[in-house]
């Protein structure tokens, strides 16, 4: 079915405009720039300073290379129907070898910002560098399936051949990585290897040396203050709006570095930046107040969709040093009891200011179809119920309480564990506090401490039989709407399989084995409905096992200054696609 659709698209877009521009559908914006307003600046903010301009060493969630990658990729997802359509590709891929080989024609006439043509070499070089473990690229894992590499080959200057080790529903997404100039990185890599690549494009590199294929290229960087991007002069050659005008409309995009989210809200309310993420009811109230008293002219829409993130508590199954705890954490009744302890209602009210929802699955609530499939398959939800929690704990053998009111086992040992989260994240600190305080009510002693993020992550991702934590409260973001289970989360042995990560990477339970199997099965299933059904089975297995206790998710709200035009139509706005495409944004 999917193949048919892409073929149809290929007929309309692919062949007719093979060597001409990609036309951005007018349905992608609610606000057509009919007056062809051009120029101006989109003013954004970022909370931490940028660390590098090098796409191969960058590891931050929000980075300069990241921002330069917008407006690239062989395929792009259509927010109307989640389908991938050819973008830098000239047409749909030719699929063969049991859905494992993809031959892609590249759109001709595309140029990097320095005027060099974008060709197959750029994709091949980029792939090579990302997959060199000496470089240590963050994207390394994305070029592997089940531990086997995906290979990229140049057939001719404008033809690429991708070979996958097995079919993947995410193939088009995987192939849509951003190409970086072979004449810059390829040259360095061939001459100096990984080390030469890593030395390139630091923050001190003059902006004039930074070259990109996407919408934006760096114009200037001021440490700790602001990075200004200007439009790539050659990008408009192959990106046109529905009326044939070159994109983007904007001249520049600036990213201001602010101390924290409060500062960026302040800047937004002061009209100094154009849009800001609304974290909670407080932010909404502030914005609404500013709009109502006339000091800010802005668009505000609350509760657009659930957030595409999760917050959870994971228990460490690998505690050889403390067999009692290991046994406890491996006991499914204990984990279900913990889910019963999590007062998600209070968490939404207290930590999220009332705007959010309870979550019970690894699948983000925004992927509603998948959630529905899971519920249909009978995935359980262990809701807040302290009586039930007490009952389950009694089954494990915790019936007596000591003088302080904590449950003790036969030997008099208190039922307690340490729970950490990253310091500085107020929402998580509150979630942890609420969890600990509720646990106390049933007699479980939770020692909750916020610690440094890096330390926390290194504990979480550590491998071995005796890993250095009891329980961690953290969140995940990312993931796709095609197959919304994490490749590095669900299968045993992957680095975010946080509850059980022994040296050999083997599953500890049959449910894990089942989940791992279902994960790969779903990942290689190209049919959407079938894939969701498999996902439903996975959610059921996961729900019953409760390896990770999911807590709550906030809501996604949209706010932007009214000087901006070109946002998505209301039905396309959500946490996954955001509020707009920068290319179609213009200043009114």
């Amino acid at each position, binding site marked *: 079915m999917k193949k048919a659709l892409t073929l149809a698209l290929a007929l309309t877009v692919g062949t007719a405009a093979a060597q001409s521009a990609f036309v951005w559908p007018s349905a992608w914006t609610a606000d057509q720039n009919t007056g062809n307003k051009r120029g101006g*600046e989109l*003013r954004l903010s970022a909370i*931490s*300073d940028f*660390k*590098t301009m090098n796409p191969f*060493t960058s*590891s931050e969630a929000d980075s300069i290379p990241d921002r330069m990658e917008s407006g690239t990729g062989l395929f792009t997802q259509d927010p109307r129907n989640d389908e991938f359509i050819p973008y830098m590709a000239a047409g749909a891929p030719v699929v063969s070898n049991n859905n494992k080989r993809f031959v892609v024609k590249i759109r001709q006439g595309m140029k990097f910002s320095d005027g060099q043509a974008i060709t197959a070499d750029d994709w091949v070089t980029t792939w090579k560098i990302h997959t060199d*473990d*000496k*470089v*240590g690229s*963050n994207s390394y894992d994305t070029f592997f399936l089940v531990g086997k590499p995906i290979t990229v080959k140049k057939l001719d200057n404008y033809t690429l051949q991708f070979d996958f080790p097995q079919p993947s529903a995410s193939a088009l997404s995987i192939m849509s990585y951003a190409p970086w100039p072979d004449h810059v990185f390829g040259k360095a890599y061939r001459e100096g290897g*990984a*080390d030469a690549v*890593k030395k390139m494009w*630091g*923050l*001190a590199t003059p902006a004039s040396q930074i070259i990109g294929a996407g919408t934006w290229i760096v*114009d*200037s960087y*001021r*440490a*700790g*203050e*602001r990075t*200004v991007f200007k439009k790539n002069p050659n990008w408009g050659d192959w990106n046109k709006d529905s009326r044939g005008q070159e994109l983007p409309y904007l001249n520049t995009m*600036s990213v*201001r*570095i*602010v*101390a*924290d989210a409060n*500062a960026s809200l*302040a*800047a937004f309310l*002061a009209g*100094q930046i154009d849009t800001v993420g609304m974290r909670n009811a407080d932010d909404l109230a502030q914005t609404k107040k*500013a709009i109502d*008293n006339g*000091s800010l002219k802005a668009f505000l829409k609350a509760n657009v969709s659930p957030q595409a993130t999760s917050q959870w508590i994971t228990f460490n199954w690998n505690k050889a040093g403390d067999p009692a705890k290991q046994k406890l954490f491996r006991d499914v009744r204990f984990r279900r009891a913990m889910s019963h302890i999590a007062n998600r209602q209070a968490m939404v009210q207290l930590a999220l200011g009332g705007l959010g929802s309870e979550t019970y699955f690894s699948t983000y609530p925004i992927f509603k179809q998948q959630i529905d499939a899971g519920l249909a398959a009978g995935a359980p939800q262990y809701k807040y119920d302290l009586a039930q929690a007490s009952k389950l704990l009694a089954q494990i053998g915790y019936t007596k309480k000591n003088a302080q009111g904590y449950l003790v086992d036969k030997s008099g040992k208190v039922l307690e564990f340490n729970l950490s989260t990253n*310091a*500085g994240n107020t929402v998580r600190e509150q979630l942890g506090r609420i969890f600990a305080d509720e646990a106390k009510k049933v007699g479980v002693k939770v020692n909750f401490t916020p610690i*440094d*993020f*890096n330390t926390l992550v*290194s504990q979480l991702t550590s491998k071995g039989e005796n890993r250095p934590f009891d329980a961690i409260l953290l969140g995940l973001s990312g993931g796709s709407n095609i197959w919304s289970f994490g490749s590095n989360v669900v299968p045993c042995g992957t680095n975010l399989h946080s509850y059980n990560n022994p040296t050999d990477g083997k599953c500890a339970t049959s449910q894990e084995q089942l989940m791992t199997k279902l994960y790969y099965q779903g990942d290689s299933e190209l049919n959407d409905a079938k894939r969701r059904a498999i996902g439903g089975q996975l959610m059921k297995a996961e729900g019953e096992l409760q390896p990770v206790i999911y807590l709550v998710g906030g809501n996604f709200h949209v706010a932007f200054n009214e000087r901006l035009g070109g946002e998505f139509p209301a039905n396309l706005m959500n946490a996954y696609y955001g509020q707009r495409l920068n290319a179609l944004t213009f200043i009114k």
Partner: protein
Amino acid sequence: MIPFLLRRLVQSIPTLLLASILIFFVIQLAPGDFLTPAKLNPNISPEQLAALQRNFGLDRHPIEQYFLWMRNMLFHFDLGLSFSYQQPVLDVIKPRVANSMYLVLLYTVLFYLIAIPLGVFGAVRQNSLGDKAVNVFLYFLLGFPSFFLALIVIYFILQLRTKTGLDIPINGMTSNDFDSMTAVQKFFDVTKHLIIPAVILAVSDAAGLTRVIRGQMLEVMRSDYIRTARAKGVTERTAIWKHTFRNAILPIVANVGSLLPSAVAGAGFIEVVFAYPGITPMILDALNAQDLYLIAGFTVITTVLLVIGNALGDILLAVVDPRIKVG
């Protein structure tokens, strides 16, 4: 004069050396070594780690390491590598140190601009209503932690902004269109951003200096030579400004050097509140990321600047106050 200058500078060397030893060994005390955070960073390859280990001699005895660190610093201006930025520390901190210095400089100027007139006023109109009012007000301010004062000021600025629409910057160091400005515009833009934090700092600190100046003025005014000058028929104005002022104030002003360490530290809190791209916000980040070379680098550089500043202050003091022997 020149030998005095030289000797004063030479005298700062042992202080600097000891400071560097202290900083180095404090960092040695920190759990793990310089590379522990790097080992957790997947972007740093084992080869790179090994190279770093060699460069900084981390496999050697701490004392030897210290000398390597010093050698790198003195002869190559190499303060090590920032792990979170993957760049030489010096490149990362240079703009931050400069930014902080702008703030401290403006603060210092304002500090004296506020404290001197108030102190002189207090001395000349001793125990008048105005003197008492100023005293009480400054006393009140003395109790405010600078960051708390800043929060309150921001509150009022926000109120003012909603009411008048006046765009008073309360965040950062430059405006959005900074890069397209002329040099003069840039100067005023930065000043505009600096003025509120600097004023807050200056006002919250001014109480101490105002009282010192007031006391000093009073003491000089009561001294015999001023009495003699008055007796000679010198006007009140001349007596205050020419005779008293010079003797009472100049040494205090020239002693600016000793003020610097607390000024730099005090500015830190304000930098955090105003999201000013200075030293402290970055040190806090570095602390979170265990970016030890970065912390050490900042500390070393600011210490060097301060010791030099102190030396310059002493020299300045010697210039304005002939009582301090030159030689």
